[in-house]
């Protein structure tokens, strides 16, 4: 074994059920590495949102509860207040966290609850067949915007960080999984977000730009290029709040 050795952590117990090149599977391994390195697997409960993102449950050996779709802000709040001895973490989708669950997400942040949200932004509702979400970009073709999103018919896309950045929260960051350097940044942000909760600093949210090659109609390599060339240009990247 060299000092360059790298092996998937044991928490990744079997093959995952995601499509080829899906960003959710990359994020899950990153989270698995962080939970393993921080030695907190047994002290963590993941609130699973509904969406393709929920499939981490099949391949990760970690305790999970499954609240109603989108209500992660409320569910994490309840979980943390009932079991303050456990890390309260969610893996959520952009549809869950920013559309049906927008109120709960922002309310938990407004209260600066000591919980951690990881939001997988793939710019649409993947599990239900690729319909448009608030994050769907202008011009983007989706199942419900077959000619592309237009301001006239569907409104402008919504960047939740425009609201979040003004709140008194502990940590806010946006990263991606588009290349090895971004994956390292994501891992760093995941670790810092969980450390904020450990240190009772309050609410932390990391949005990760992830590809959905299946619903984007792109090959996995081209889906990563879309993140680099379009989404990482459109969105502010990096740490925005770090208290």
């Amino acid at each position: 074994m060299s000092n360059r050795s790298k092996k998937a952590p044991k928490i990744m117990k079997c093959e995952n059920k995601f499509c080829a090149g899906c960003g959710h599977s990359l994020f899950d391994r990153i989270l698995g590495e962080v939970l393993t390195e921080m030695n907190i697997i047994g002290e963590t409960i993941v609130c699973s949102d509904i969406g393709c993102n929920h499939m981490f449950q099949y391949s990760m050996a970690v305790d999970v509860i499954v609240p109603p779709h989108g209500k992660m802000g409320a569910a994490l709040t309840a979980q943390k207040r009932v079991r303050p001895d456990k890390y309260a973490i969610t893996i959520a989708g952009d549809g869950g966290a920013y559309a049906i669950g927008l109120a709960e997400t922002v309310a938990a942040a407004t209260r600066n609850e000591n919980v951690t949200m990881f939001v997988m932004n793939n710019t649409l509702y993947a599990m239900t067949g690729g319909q448009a979400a608030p994050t769907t970009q202008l011009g983007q073709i989706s199942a419900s915007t077959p000619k592309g999103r237009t301001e006239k018919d569907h409104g402008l896309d919504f960047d939740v960080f425009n609201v979040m950045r003004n709140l008194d929260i502990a940590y806010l960051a946006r990263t991606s999984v588009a290349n090895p350097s971004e994956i390292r940044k994501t891992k760093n942000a995941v670790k810092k977000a969980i450390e904020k909760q450990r240190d009772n600093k309050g609410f932390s949210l990391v949005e990760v730009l992830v590809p959905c090659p299946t619903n984007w109609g792109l090959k996995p390599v081209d889906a990563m290029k879309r993140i680099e060339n379009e989404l990482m240009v459109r969105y502010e990247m990096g740490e925005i709040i770090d208290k």
Partner: protein
Amino acid sequence: MKVKLDVDRCKGCYLCIANCKIGAISKDDKPNKKGVIPVKVDQEKCVQCGNCYTMCPDLVFEIL
């Protein structure tokens, strides 16, 4: 050996090929158990940078 592969896990996204900067990874000839053409690594060329491990969604790679 520098890198060990579990080729039956490969779903054929080929993110590893795109991110191996020295071009040590290529498609294999025969399909794996999933019916997917997996990848193979030129062990001589490999510099153990770990990019394949980092970019593989399916945990195919172990850097030894």
